[in-house]
């Protein structure tokens, strides 16, 4: 099993993908998994070549055959999601539970497998990338994240890679919980804003809930020194290791705009901070792995 490092943030847009892409470059021997399946961005920086694709069919959706339906209304009455109206199913509201199929006396309501996304394997200049794309509103986001990680682990096994780098999604709900599972270490990327700090507190809550070690880095650390200090205080009071501070740097914006990986082409303050952050993160990951 490769060691799993998961990059999360709680609040969106704090720089998870910028960190993940730079780490992937520096690792020289990792497999990356983009688990932000409903807004994936990592591939945009990596010029990937598609190797494999598979449809993702973990969810079901109901359908009603109008020819056999007698319009008795039992399905509509029994659906807890309000997904059936006038003997038709709204696929966005349907959660594929199968209650309509169960109660339909005529066999007119049926569950059918639904393709809610696609899983991809790509080759990049830094190593293999497992990624996916969810259909808008698609069910089973958590299962899709789990599938991306399974594919990534398989790639790691086939190629003898020892690090699985997971670029997570914002939030604390099912896709995040699915990325946290199996992590050896979570790196939370926060920013010195009130929302950034609160996002950190909430993602730290998730890490604690599932018993996974979490460490912190601050992005754009100098935007608000006062709140950066509050983040530091929160970390020291909660026993969280602060692994690095990446300063605000125009080069980050420039690299993102050009679809470039910061540490590969630049040598400014942010790029250097990311290199130190990488070393500190690897040291902590190794000592965490050694303990378990």
């Amino acid at each position, binding site marked *: 099993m490769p060691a799993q490092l998961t990059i999360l943030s*709680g*609040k*969106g*847009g*704090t720089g998870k*993908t910028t960190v993940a892409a730079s780490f992937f470059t520096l690792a020289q021997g990792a497999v990356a998994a983009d688990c*932000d*399946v*409903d*807004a994936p*961005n990592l591939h*945009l920086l990596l010029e990937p070549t598609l190797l494999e694709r598979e449809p993702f069919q973990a969810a*079901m959706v109901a359908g009603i055959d109008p020819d056999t339906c007698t319009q008795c209304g039992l399905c509509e009455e*029994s659906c*807890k999601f309000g997904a059936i109206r006038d003997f038709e199913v709204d696929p*966005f509201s349907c*959660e*594929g*539970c*199968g*209650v309509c199929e*169960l*109660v339909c006396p005529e066999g007119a309501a049926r569950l059918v497998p639904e393709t809610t996304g696609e899983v991809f394997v790509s080759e990049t200049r830094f190593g293999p990338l497992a990624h996916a794309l*969810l259909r*808008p*509103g*698609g*069910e089973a*986001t*958590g299962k899709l994240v789990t599938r991306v990680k399974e594919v990534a682990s398989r790639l790691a096994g086939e190629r003898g890679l020892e690090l699985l780098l997971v670029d997570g*999604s*914002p*939030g*604390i*709900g*099912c*896709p*995040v*919980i699915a990325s946290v599972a199996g992590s050896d270490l979570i790196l939370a990327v926060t*920013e*010195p*804003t*009130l*929302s*950034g700090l*609160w*996002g950190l507190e*909430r993602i730290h*809550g*998730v890490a604690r*809930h*599932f018993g996974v070690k979490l460490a912190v880095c601050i992005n*754009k650390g100098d*935007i*608000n020194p006062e*709140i950066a200090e509050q983040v530091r205080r929160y970390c020291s009071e909660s026993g969280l290791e602060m692994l690095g501070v990446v300063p*605000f740097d125009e080069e980050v914006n420039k690299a*993102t*705009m050009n*679809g470039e990986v910061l540490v590969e082409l630049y040598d400014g303050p942010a790029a250097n901070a990311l290199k130190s952050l990488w070393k500190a993160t690897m040291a902590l990951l190794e000592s965490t792995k050694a303990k378990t």
Partner: protein
Amino acid sequence: MVISIASGKGGTGKTTVAANMAWAASTVEPVTFLDCDVEEPDSHFYLKPEWSGEEDVCVPVPVVDSSRCDGCGKCAEFCRYNALAAIKGDVLVFQELCHGCGGCSLVCPLKCISYEDKRIGIVRNGSRRGVRLHQGLLDIGEPIAVPVIKQVKEKRAGDGLTLIDCPPGTGCPMVNSITGSDYCMLVTEPSPFGRHDLDLAHRAALELRIPHGVVISRSSGNDAIIDDYCADEGLKVLGRIPFSRDIAEACSRGEMLAEIDSAWSLRFSRILEEVRKECLLSLLS
């Protein structure tokens, strides 16, 4: 009128736009602000409401009467979410996986499954000046945000303007948040990430048949990457918020530009006017 503010990509400035618009509009009409980003709600940092109360969001979860259950396992077999497992004549319930469909009690031959309410989050209610805020907050460790979003959306008022601050992404939470709105504003940034995720959000709004337009935040003066996309897709650019370190710092402290500067207030009112015009046009077409 109900306007949702969504983005695809996280951290593009949804809440900044929504809060500032709410503040600017509240000088002329009552505003209801629904914070549906229940995993990471942060509207309160900007709106600074006085909280008047909160209510639990509960979902029904199955309880198995073990004195009567014979462990046949039909419930576990039915459940598509793996919320029940039959092991050696016993049934285990994993409450946080339950979607509350009610199927297990329907299939139980002994009728020994009932339901109890389980809290998965809260809705907080507050207000300041003419803005009423209802904010959902998903409990830590709970995976399913949609019931919290739905309860926040029940707070929609009959009068004035309702603004819905949506979660990022294009999954169930986002789709459930924008459903039912008259118009959806997609906030993006001029970068390949912003463009890519705007495309996903645009497709989601199209599928739901919700009229929508674009706000460009962190505008650099050259937003060709988004402008070109919008021109190709026939999307209206409703307004721009320039990038500046001053704005970033103000936002980091939770300051609303519309509150500290009347020129900004006017600017957000104009964006809202554009939205109203677009709404009208979409009704006519």
